[in-house]
């Protein structure tokens, strides 16, 4: 690494004709180099993403349990999973989860990013920033193990804290009414730091003069944020919500560890259904059909978002 030599820039003839005469040998060298450089990534993506997508579509048209040879099923798997109440419930759960988790995550992250962006000592700002970012580095699976105890109805810290402000113990993980709320809270607790960092970066990108100009025009507090900051932050908001939604539609660890989909099917998500079908019941065809449906859902939601965003996103 130390022997690297940055060639000295020699004074060049100013003539634009100096677009160096390119021998074709160099061109060939460049193309060969590009091919070599791209090969690991492109081959990897083709083998482990492109072919598997096609594979999923093909598999979804077959009945297959790994042991017997596959038999063609046509649309039967789709008919079956679309008529399966557990599958339908899992799609509803996932959408409910997505709406609340993403909304909560963006709201918390936005408020905290604006607050952290206000005036305060530099060291304090970095303490807050690190604190909100910290849960992101932890494993969702092991943190869910921890949360299982914190959300325990009888001896959990969450209910104890609620007790301090006079709220009766909530059967968080054991009631169909509140289990999803607990899963959402655990997920948001771990994930909001991601959007928070995006917003902090986005806010830093807004030129100071714009805020000063707005202040001179008499805009203050909430009004300033609503009329000035938010439109300028809208490209970052778009990225945060697209990434947030794509991630939320794939939620697995939290419900798997916290509730294993229960009580009943109240926290069973689409990815849990894929997992259970494929790797617990060896119904690969049905699992692939659910996977293809999830893929279509993600594409549709993302496309819709980009379409809607045309009206709300302002680029500087």
């Amino acid at each position, binding site marked *: 690494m130390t022997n690297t030599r940055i060639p000295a820039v020699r004074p060049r003839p100013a003539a634009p004709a100096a677009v160096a005469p390119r021998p074709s040998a160099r061109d060939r060298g*460049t193309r060969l180099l590009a091919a070599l450089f*791209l090969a690991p990534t492109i081959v990897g993506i083709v083998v482990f993403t492109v072919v598997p997508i096609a594979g999923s579509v093909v598999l979804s048209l077959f009945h297959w349990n790994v042991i017997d040879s596959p038999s063609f099923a046509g649309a039967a798997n789709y008919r079956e999973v679309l008529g399966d109440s557990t599958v339908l419930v899992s799609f509803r759960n996932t959408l409910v989860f997505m709406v609340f988790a993403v909304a909560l995550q963006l709201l918390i992250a936005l408020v905290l990013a604006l607050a952290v962006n206000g005036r305060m000592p530099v060291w304090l700002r970095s303490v807050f920033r690190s604190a909100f970012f910290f849960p992101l580095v932890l494993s969702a699976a092991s943190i869910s193990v921890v949360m299982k105890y914190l959300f325990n109805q009888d001896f959990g810290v969450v209910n104890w804290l609620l007790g301090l402000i006079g709220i009766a113990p909530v059967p968080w993980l054991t009631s169909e009414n509140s289990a999803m709320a607990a899963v959402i809270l655990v997920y948001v607790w771990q994930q909001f730091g991601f959007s928070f960092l995006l917003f902090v970066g986005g806010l830093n990108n807004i030129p100071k003069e714009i805020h000063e100009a707005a202040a001179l025009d008499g805009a203050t507090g909430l009004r300033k944020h609503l009329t000035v900051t938010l439109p300028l932050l809208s490209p970052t908001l778009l990225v945060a919500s697209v990434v947030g939604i794509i991630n939320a539609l794939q939620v697995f660890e939290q419900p798997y560890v916290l509730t294993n989909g229960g009580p009943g099917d109240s926290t069973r998500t689409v990815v849990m259904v894929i997992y259970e079908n494929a790797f617990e019941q060896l119904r690969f065809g049905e699992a692939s059909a659910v996977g293809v449906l999830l893929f279509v859902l993600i594409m549709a939601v993302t496309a819709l978002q980009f379409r809607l965003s045309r009206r709300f996103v302002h680029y500087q």
Partner: protein
Amino acid sequence: MSQATLSLSRTRHSLAPWARIAGLTVCALLTLGPVIWTVSTSLRTPAESFDLPPRIIPTHPTTEAYHGVFDQIDVWLLALNSTLVTALIAVGQMITAGLAGYAFARLEFRFKKPLFGLVLATMMVPLQVTIVPVFLVLKSMGLTDTLLGLIVPAFPTAFGTFLMRQYFLGMPKDLGEAAMLDGAGPWRIFRSVYAPLAAPGLAIVGVLAFNYHWNEFFRPLILETSSQNYTLPLGLVSLQGNLGTGSISVVLAGVVLSMIPAVAVFVVGQRPLREGITSAGVNR
């Protein structure tokens, strides 16, 4: 009139900071609370583990629970597996993303745009949609239930490639042109001019990869069936299943053990990690 608005805004600003900082402090405590509780409970005796209000400083601190973890699961083996998998993936991603990112940023070749589009598109494909066929591909290669099966498919990284392309695009073009006038070929230009400058960008890719794969649960859960191939998150969740003693300290001690490298990455790699995430929202 304008005098009045100005003074109004001044009073607002003099009031706000305290409330704002107090609110932020409460939020920070809520965010770190579960982690603090985990560490403190892992150091308590089983009898004290359910104490309410939770005592942050244990009255009888003990490492008993940590011995329990080592008795129940082979922590060293799991840690070795996790380290091996994570380190190889991180290095692999730095290499593949560095090379591909450079090609997309600085080399001219046919089908550049569609190939880059392909890479970007795969960022949107959820892992779970492809996992069944990936499992079958790995099975046909004889790589299921091996660590290699976890490592190899994780080498190409769409996000890392995107990040490195942006990174190389941000470097001055003159450097390469000057080297070319000096007679350097495309390989030399990459090797001696641009690659050394890419180290900070590669660090971002490496730290992001380390963090993601150290904590990864879904792929190991599906691919690894024998417990000697488990990684730490899998071992931990199995620890919870084996536990019939009623002491949560052991489980939490296991969680703390698995957190240590993540926290180390947080301390050492905080900046690269933050920059990696922030640039996802700012670079367009």
